[in-house]
């Protein structure tokens, strides 16, 4: 099973204000998809992530995709299959852009 690591060269920052805003939106049942709660910067490429993307990013600390999904299921109310597909696609995109690496 492939373990996922953040690329240590990526510079990143979580935006406290926006994170609180996104959490409040979720608590009130609103959509928080368009609220960027973190910024990632690598080799001149900048990415902004919403709250789900940020949580996935923070879990890229040597866990497998399955472990990340299991952890997220404790925080977000979503169907496991749907979440698993979203997480896999998102991680593949991060890997293509060089923000994460798949290891053993």
């Amino acid at each position: 099973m492939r373990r996922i690591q953040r690329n240590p060269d990526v510079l990143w920052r979580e935006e406290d204000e926006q994170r609180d805003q996104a959490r409040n939106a979720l608590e009130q049942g609103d959509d928080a998809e368009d609220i960027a709660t973190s910024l990632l910067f690598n080799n001149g490429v900048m990415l902004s992530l919403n709250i789900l993307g940020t949580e996935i990013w923070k879990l890229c600390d040597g866990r497998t995709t399955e472990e990340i999904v299991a952890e997220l299921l404790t925080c977000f109310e979503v169907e496991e299959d749907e979440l698993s597909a979203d997480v896999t696609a998102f991680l593949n995109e991060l890997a293509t852009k060089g923000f994460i690496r798949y290891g053993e």
Partner: protein
Amino acid sequence: MSLGELARPLTIYWDLTPLPAISPDYTRICHHIAAIKPLQLHLLDCGPALDQTCFSILEQMRGTPLAVVLTTVPNNISEASLDRLHNLGLRGLLLYAASCAELAGITAIRDDVGGRFATGIAFQVNHGNWQELPRVVTFCLEHGISSLTLPMQRLYGDEPAFTLAAQEQATLTELLARLDYSALRLTIHDPFLWRAFNPTTPFPGGGCQAANTMLAISPDGTVYPCPTLPLALGNLHTSTLTEILASAAKIDMRKMLRELPEACGDCAELHQCRGGCRGRSYVLQGSACSLDPACERSVN
């Protein structure tokens, strides 16, 4: 997802030289910077020798998540200074040159730098040297230098503003087309220079980022939205960066910069160019809301 408006910048450009008549309180400025948690600090120290100030700033920033990149002249680099910079956690080193002749010194030290930091060249483009750019690119390719930055002009000083006229842009594009520099990592802030190097790739960045993703600190501690836009937002002798970021001056500045110059009208390039360099418009046209003089439309 677009970056939108940020409460705190991602990058701070802090110029230490030319040395000011009255030095600011460097330690205090370091605290201000750390408090707003940017991702990158770009230090510029092009004095005749690397100043002690530069080392003490690195000392203070060591151990923080902030990535510090230093731009300095090749003459300032020795085996001892490289060791010291490495031990102080420097993340990147850019060797400054403004002519092909100055690049010669870089050949000599490239091997010493080897592997310790990300290293590249910062070539300051001006009216007298833009035609040397293809030679600079060739130099990088021939010497295994993988990163070339064309730094933003420091227009808060007395540097004359540089514009690449449309005809010059076409000439440069033609000269560059003979080279394969796809492996070279280019950092170009000027949308018109960008086009000369990347005629088919849209300019990234989503419009003028002055006072949004970046802030600039001049050697005397004055804070500007960008090194190229000399409209002061405050001074770190009397304010903190946090105060400046929350100030009406900064908020109004962003409001102004988000509005595109009226003269851009229905320009087909608008989606990527987003109104050109607003600092250059301010310096050469007297208003940051005017058309960038590098734009063909400003001539027509």
